[in-house]
């Protein structure tokens, strides 16, 4: 028996001093603290139109909301299951084109086409997820990128069916229960409703048995399967769930813009989606929303021209990843905990 190996095997590991043992994040929050964020969210989200924000701001808020829905889908995949994908714009594209083509060829409206957009995107996501069962983290990220590039090419070369490079047009959102969506305000409120639903659904995933299962896969695949978890099955399900979010975001996007073209769903938008999630904090409930808000509204607030805004965004992102690897919201949460324990001690 080789001596060096024995030494490695039996050498006591460095013990963690008792004082450095960390405690779970949300462990001791009071009910009031738990309700602060949802209350602010609902008030701001649905109160915005009553502040007469103007067309430009409302339109920005609507498109931010649309992105946020897709971001929540990706956050479940990255934050909970621990699988990175840079192909998410392609999944949005599947939803968007499903909506546009069903409207053109079958005369379906947003409401009837919505389930199909979600289902087709989920199926596409399951397909993109299949290679993750065979190849590990790094290789897989590149595969998702390649899938995304492939889809953009297919859409561009799809001829009349996909409208080729110039894309497809679509009519307005059909009225529902007597509510017309001719006014931007109502489109905004509709998107706000879906954002809230996405956050609620993500919360349900996070606190449920299913969320724990996904986190176990993220943390330790080997141990998860040794405890009876079907890792491969759950990875694909996580992908499909994530894809359904992207499909809903996609069809809302096409009805909001009333026009789509392939470049909306290519490699670059995909990269942006991944970056927004990482910026906000993929494991935090409000991380994706924060990421979307920062990227869309910070340039407006700072009054930067689009090019400078992109540069500032890139630099800001790099700084966040280096300084707060868990994203902005994780940084804020830990700041809050520190302050709270100082106040409690004082």
């Amino acid at each position: 028996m080789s001596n060096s190996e024995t030494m490695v095997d039996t050498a006591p590991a460095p013990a963690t001093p008792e004082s450095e043992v960390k405690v779970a994040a949300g462990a001791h929050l009071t009910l009031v603290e738990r309700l602060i964020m949802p209350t602010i969210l609902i008030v701001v989200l649905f109160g915005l139109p009553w502040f007469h924000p103007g067309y430009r701001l409302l339109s920005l808020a609507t498109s931010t909301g649309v992105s946020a829905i897709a971001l929540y889908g990706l956050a479940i995949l990255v934050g909970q299951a621990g699988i990175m994908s840079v192909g998410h714009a392609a999944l949005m594209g599947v939803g968007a084109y499903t909506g546009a083509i069903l409207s053109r060829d079958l005369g379906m409206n947003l409401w009837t086409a919505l389930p199909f957009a979600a289902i087709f995107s989920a199926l596409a996501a399951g397909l993109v997820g299949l290679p993750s069962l065979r190849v590990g983290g790094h290789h897989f990220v590149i595969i998702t990128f390649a899938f995304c590039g492939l889809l953009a090419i297919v859409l561009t070369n799809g001829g009349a069916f996909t409208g080729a490079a110039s894309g497809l047009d679509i009519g307005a959102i059909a009225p529902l229960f007597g509510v017309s969506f001719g006014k931007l305000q109502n489109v905004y409120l509709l998107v706000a409703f879906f954002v809230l639903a996405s956050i609620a659904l993500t919360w349900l995933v996070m606190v449920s048995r299913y969320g724990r299962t996904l986190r176990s896969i993220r943390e330790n695949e080997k141990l998860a399967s040794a405890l009876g978890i079907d890792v491969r099955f759950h990875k694909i399900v996580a992908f499909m769930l994530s894809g359904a979010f992207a499909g809903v975001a996609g069809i809302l996007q096409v009805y909001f813009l009333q026009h789509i073209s392939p470049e909306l769903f290519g490699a670059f938008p995909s990269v942006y989606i991944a970056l927004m999630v990482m910026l906000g904090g993929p494991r935090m409930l409000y991380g994706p929303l924060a990421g979307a808000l920062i990227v869309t509204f910070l340039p407006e607030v700072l009054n930067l021209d689009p090019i400078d805004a992109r540069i500032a965004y890139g630099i800001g992102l790099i700084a966040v990843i280096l300084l707060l690897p868990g994203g902005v919201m994780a940084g804020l949460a830990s700041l809050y905990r520190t302050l709270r324990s100082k106040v409690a001690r004082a």
Partner: protein
Amino acid sequence: MEIFLQQLVNSLSVASVIILIGIGITLIFGLTGIINFAHGEFLMIGGMTTWLVVSNGGGFIIGLVAAVLFVGLLGFVLERGLFRLTLDRPMNGFIISLGLIVVLQHFVIRFWNSYQKSIPEPLSGVWEIGGVQIIVMRAVVVLITAVVVAITFFGISRSRYGLALRASVADQETASLMGVPVRRYITGVFIYGSMLAGLGGALMIALFPITPFIGSTIVVRGFAVALIGGLGNVAGAVVAGLVLGLMDGLSAGYGLPEWTEAYSFALMILILLLRPNGLLGGTAGPRAV
């Protein structure tokens, strides 16, 4: 047949640029696990450097040398300043490289707008060999690449440093236990890979006009080449680069140019699924996320 041969020669010059990018990626990714998606932007910066030098009255050779040195320096600064800090969390390194794409691209657009840039052909003229017309500049690009590939290959397979490098690619921990200064090798490889990207950019702008957006198409080919050839495997990258380059050139020459990019995507997905270690074998890469 003549047309076929002509297309073949033309494709070789495209393949050359892809090979230069692919070798940089295969070494950097294979050794450090850094997925530097901004590697394509490094090439773009190389091309833009050459364009700046040439359009300010410098010669192409000066432009080429400037591109290699400047991008090498850029690689050094970014490795020490950013990527080094993420070596234990490779996924963060990847995210940072995505941020870098945005920064580098828009930096160039901000100062030199987003239109395509070109330089006058450094070498004009056409050789005719047995009815096949060969554009001289393209032949020179292939030649330069061949020399660089040969130097890289022998440097890695014959020299003491190359041996230590391959040992580090195969198993960083053991290599560093045996006294290989792995961290310095990582910096060295990053700089070398960056210089190859700078060279690729200079050669590319000698062949075609380039835009600030060229990076994302190129980097995907580069990763395709690195993964198809097997990580850390220079010979594999050359073979894979030739295959992709020829596929590109021939599909463009035989009437399906709009699907050109799709082939490399599809081939890459297929190979990664069927043979995760690449066609010619390489390391499986450093540990996953």
